C-alpha cells in the first residue's frame, strides 16, 4: 500500500490514465540487469514476447490448482520483468513463485505468441540458486537429492536399503506417516515415491554392446545407436533399458551402452544447478564421442530434453560449443528412432490385445514436441487400441524433483491425473519417463499395470505378454 500514491483530498489521477507509479530510481535494486546478476539473466527480448493474453493459464498446473496470477506462466514472466527492472528482489515472493513452477512447459505449447518460457525459466533458476540463500533445511534437502539421484552406485546402495525397508515396513506405517508433522512433508513424500525395489534388477548391468539382429532379408545394419542408460532409469526401471536394447537390435541397430556413462545432468539443469549440469554434459559428450555412434537414443523424456539443449548450455565455451552442438544433433527419443523404422519395419509385431492409455510426459510432449511418434509406434502393434487422456496437457506433478520439493501441489496433481487415467477404462498405462511412472504409481495404487511404451513394443516383437500384464 505504500507503493502507489494514496488517494487524498487532491487526488492524483495519473494512475487512472495508465501511468504506472514507477518506484523512485533510488528504490531500484542492482545494476544493469536489476536484481539479476550478469550471467545470462532472462533476456529482455524473450520477456518482451509475452503480450499478457492469458492463453497459457488453463494449461498451467499451478494455475489449475490455485487460480493465482503469480503462479501462472504470464504471472511468472511478469515477476521476471519486475526483477529485471530491479523493482523486486529475488529473495522472498519471487523465489517462492518460481520454485512452485513445475517446469512442465505446457505454457510453451499453449502460447500463440511463441514465448520461450523454457529459456526464461532456465535462465532464472540458476539466478536463484546463485543469489538466494535458502533456509538450512531446504538447502540440506536439495543437497541430499543431488548427492543421491544422479549417481547409479549410490542409488543401487540405496535400493538395498529400500528393499529391506519395504520387507520390514510395518503395515501401520501409513498411519504413522499420516501423523508426521507437516514440516517433514517432503520426507514423507520421498518415502511414498519409493517404487517396489527389485535388488536383482537394480544391480543388473546393460551389456556394453548388443549386436543388430540380421537375417538374409535384411543383411544390412541400420547403424550404431548409443543408448543412454540413465540413473533412476537404470536402477529402478532396468527392464525398460533391456527392452529398449532388444527393440533397437531387432530393428537392425547395433546398440552401444557405454559403461562409463554417468548422469546427463537433466535433474540439476532443470533445478537451476547450471555449473553441475555443464560438467555432466561435458563428460557425457566425451563418453559418446568415444563410442562413435550415429544416433544417441534415450528412453527418458527429461534426459532427452536436456541433451537436446546441450548446444545452448555450452554455447559460451569455445572448446565445447561445437562438440555440444554435434552431440545434441544426434539425440533422439527412442520413440523417434522406432517411428522412423515403421516405414520399413524388420521385426514382426505379434498381436497384443489391450486398451492402452498413453500419458504424454511433459519433457517429451511439451519440451520436445514429440506426441505423434510414440502414438504411431504403439498403433503399429496389432490389437492395441489407444485411448486419449482428458487434460492430457496437464503435468502429473512429478516434474523432476518437484514431487519431493513441493509435495502438496504434486500430490494434488498426481491424484487429478490418476482420476483421469482411471476414467479411460484402459488396461494399461504407458509413459516414457521414470519420474511420471513413480509419481502416477503412487496414486493409481496398483489398479493398472504401468509400463514404458517400448516395453509393449518389445513384448509384441517377442510374442510374449508384457510384464505386469499376466
Amino acid at each position, binding site marked *: 500500500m505504500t507503493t*502507489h500514491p494514496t488517494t487524498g483530498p487532491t487526488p492524483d489521477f495519473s494512475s487512472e490514465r495508465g501511468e504506472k507509479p514507477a518506484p523512485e530510481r533510488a528504490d531500484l535494486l542492482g545494476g544493469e540487469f536489476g536484481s539479476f546478476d550478469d550471467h545470462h539473466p532472462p533476456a529482455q527480448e524473450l520477456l518482451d514476447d509475452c503480450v*499478457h*493474453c492469458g492463453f497459457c493459464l488453463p494449461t498451467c498446473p499451478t494455475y489449475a490448482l490455485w487460480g493465482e496470477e503469480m503462479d501462472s506462466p504470464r504471472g511468472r514472466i511478469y515477476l521476471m520483468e519486475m526483477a529485471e527492472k530491479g523493482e523486486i528482489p529475488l529473495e522472498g515472493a519471487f523465489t517462492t513463485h518460481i520454485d512452485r513452477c513445475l517446469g512442465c512447459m505446457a505454457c510453451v505449447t499453449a502460447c500463440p505468441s511463441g514465448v520461450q518460457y523454457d529459456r526464461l525459466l532456465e535462465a532464472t533458476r540458476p539466478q536463484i540458486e546463485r543469489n538466494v540463500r535458502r533456509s538450512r533445511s531446504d538447502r540440506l534437502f536439495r543437497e541430499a537429492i543431488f548427492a543421491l539421484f544422479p549417481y547409479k552406485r549410490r542409488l543401487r546402495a540405496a535400493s538395498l536399503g529400500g528393499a529391506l525397508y519395504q520387507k520390514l515396513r510395518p503395515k501401520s506405517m501409513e498411519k504413522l506417516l499420516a501423523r508426521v508433522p507437516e514440516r517433514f512433508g517432503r520426507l514423507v513424500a520421498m518415502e511414498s515415491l519409493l517404487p517396489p525395489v527389485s535388488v536383482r534388477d537394480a544391480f543388473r548391468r546393460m551389456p556394453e554392446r548388443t549386436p543388430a539382429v540380421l537375417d538374409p532379408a535384411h543383411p544390412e545394419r541400420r547403424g550404431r545407436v548409443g543408448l543412454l542408460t540413465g540413473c533412476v532409469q537404470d536402477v529402478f526401471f532396468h527392464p525398460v533399458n533391456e527392452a529398449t536394447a532388444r527393440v533397437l537390435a531387432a530393428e537392425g541397430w547395433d546398440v552401444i551402452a557405454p559403461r562409463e556413462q554417468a548422469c546427463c545432468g537433466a535433474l540439476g539443469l532443470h533445478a537451476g544447478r547450471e555449473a553441475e549440469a555443464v560438467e555432466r554434459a561435458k563428460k557425457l559428450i566425451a563418453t559418446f564421442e568415444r563410442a562413435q555412434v550415429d544416433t544417441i537414443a534415450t528412453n527418458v523424456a527429461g534426459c532427452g530434453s536436456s541433451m537436446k539443449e546441450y548446444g545452448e548450455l555450452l554455447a559460451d565455451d569455445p572448446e565445447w560449443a561445437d562438440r555440444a552442438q554435434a552431440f545434441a544433433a544426434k539425440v533422439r527419443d527412442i520413440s523417434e528412432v522406432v517411428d522412423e523404422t515403421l516405414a520399413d519395419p524388420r521385426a514382426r509385431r505379434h498381436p497384443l490385445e489391450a486398451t492402452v492409455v498413453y500419458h504424454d510426459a511433459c519433457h517429451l510432449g511439451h519440451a520436445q514436441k514429440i506426441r505423434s511418434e510414440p502414438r504411431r509406434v504403439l498403433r503399429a502393434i496389432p490389437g492395441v487400441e489407444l485411448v486419449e487422456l482428458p487434460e492430457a496437457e496437464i503435468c502429473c506433478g512429478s516434474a523432476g524433483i518437484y514431487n519431493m520439493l513441493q509435495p502438496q501441489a504434486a500430490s494434488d496433481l498426481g491424484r487429478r491425473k490418476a482420476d483421469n487415467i482411471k476414467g479411460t477404462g484402459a488396461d494399461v498405462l504407458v509413459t516414457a519417463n521414470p519420474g511420471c511412472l513413480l509419481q502416477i504409481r503412487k496414486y493409481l495404487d496398483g489398479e493398472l499395470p504401468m509400463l514404458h511404451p517400448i516395453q509393449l513394443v518389445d513384448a509384441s516383437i517377442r510374442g510374449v505378454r508384457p510384464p505386469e500384464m499376466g
Partner: protein
Amino acid sequence: MPERTMEAPHGGTGSDAPSAATPPAAVGPELARDFRDVLPADLVITDEVGRRSYECDGLTGFRQVPALVVLPRDAEEVAACVRICARHGVPFVARGAGTGLSGGAMPVADGVVISVQKLRRILEIDVENRRAVLEPGVYNLEISKAAQPHGLYYAPDPSSQQVCTIGGNVAENSGGAHCLKYGFTTNHVLEMEVVLADGSVVTLGGPTGEQAGPDLRGLFIGSEGTLGICTRVTVRLLQTPETVRTVLADFPSIEAAGDTVGDIVDAAIIPAAVEMMDSLSMEASEAATGAGLTVDAPAALIIELDGPADEVEAEFEHLTAICERHGATRLHVPTEAEERQKVWKGRKAAFAAVGRISPDYIVQDGVVPRTRLAEVLTRIAEMGRDAGLRVANVFHAGDGNLHPLVLYSESAGEHDAAEKLSTDIAELCVELGGSLSGEHGIGTDKACSMPVMFSSDDLGVMHRVRLAFDPDSRCNPGKLFPTPRLCGERPGKYQPHPLEEAGVIERL
C-alpha cells in the same frame, strides 16, 4: 429484481451520497483482517509482488496496483467479500481470467480485486432441458467440452474461449466467430445469481428464459462489472449441428473478399461464421499455428455453414460459386474435423500470434455496417500510413465487427501514436454509422470515446441505471463512463469536464 435471496446487511445510501468528493476510506490493516475472518489467510493477497501481478488484464497499457486481492471459493464467500467492501466503503473489481482487451478488469487504486478463479465448477448439465449451470470462473470452452458427450454445445465462442470465463463473458456480453448466426452471450444466458454492491444476492432472469417485467438480466449482461458480480450462470445449450462445412477462401484483394460477404448475405445464406483475415494477420497466425493459411494472399475468408446435411450441401455449392465469381484464388475445404479445427485455430490465435511480428500492439474492436467494410478498411489503411504504423486486420466480416491490430514498438516511442491511431479507428467506426465496440467492451480503454457515440442524455440515463444498482459507484468504478478524472483531468488548474458541467457525470 425478482427474488432477494439474502437480506442486505448494509443498504446503499442512495444516489445523492456517492463517494464523490470524499476519497475511499483509507485501506488499513482492518480490511485485510476482515477478509481473513471469512477466507483462509493465503487467499487474501496483500504482499506487493502478489498485488502487482494483478495490476492489469489483457490490456497492459493501463495498470493500477490494487490494495488487496481476494480469492473467494464459492458464491457465499464472494458475497461476504462484497459485504466487507461495502462496510469499509472501498471499491472492488471482479476478475475472471484477466484476458479482457479493454482494461475492464484493471484494478482501482485503494480498491479490492475479487478474483473468481476458484469458482470453476460446472454445477449441472441438464441434458433434457439443454441447460448448464455454471460458476463464473468456468472457462468458456469447458462448457462445450462438458456438454459434448450429450450432443450439445455452448454457442458463443470468443477467440480466447480456451481461457476466458463465463463470468467475464457475461460482463462483456462476449461474442465470437459464430455469433453471426447464433447471437451473443445475452442470447444464451437464461439466469444469473448476482451479488450487488451492498452484498445482497439476487437472481436475474429465470431458468426458462421467459420472465415478467423488465429484462434486468439483459441489463446486467454487458454492464462490464459496474452493476455487481455474477456468481452463478445458467446458459442455454444447443444441439451439435448435424453437418458442418468450412471453406477457407483466398482473395486477390480485401475488396473482393468484402464483396463476397455482401453477396453471401444477399443470397439469403446465413453462415454460422464469416471471418476475414488480411495478409499481415495471416503471416503471424501461420507462424504460430501452421494452420495452412496462404500468407501472401491479400485477404482470406473463413466461411462456415452448419445445419441439416441437405441444406448445408445445397448452400455450400452456392457459396463456393459466389467465392469463385469474386475471383477466389484458392478454396481449401478441410474434410476432417481435425483439419477444420486447425483452420479455426489459425483464426482464433491471430490476436496473440501478432506478438510474433510486432513487439507491441493494440487490439481494436469496432463495428461498421457490413456494406461499408471496404470503405472502412481503405480509410484504416490510409490512417495507418499517415501515422507510420502497420495495421493488421482480423474480423468477423459477417456482422461488420472489425478487429484492427495496431502494431507498434514501445521501445521506439510509438506508444502514443499507436494509442491515438487506435482511438481514431474506433471513432471512425462511429462516424460510418457503426459502434465503438463489438464485443471487447468499453472498459478503461474507450471510456473517453463514449461521448462520440452517445449524447449527454444517453450517458445520463446509463449512469442513473448504474446508480440504481450501485448507489456508491463502488462496482468497477472508472470503467465504461467517461469520468473527468479519466478523460478530462489535466495537470494544473481544475477544469470541469463538459459532461460534468452538464450534470451527467460526477467526479468520483
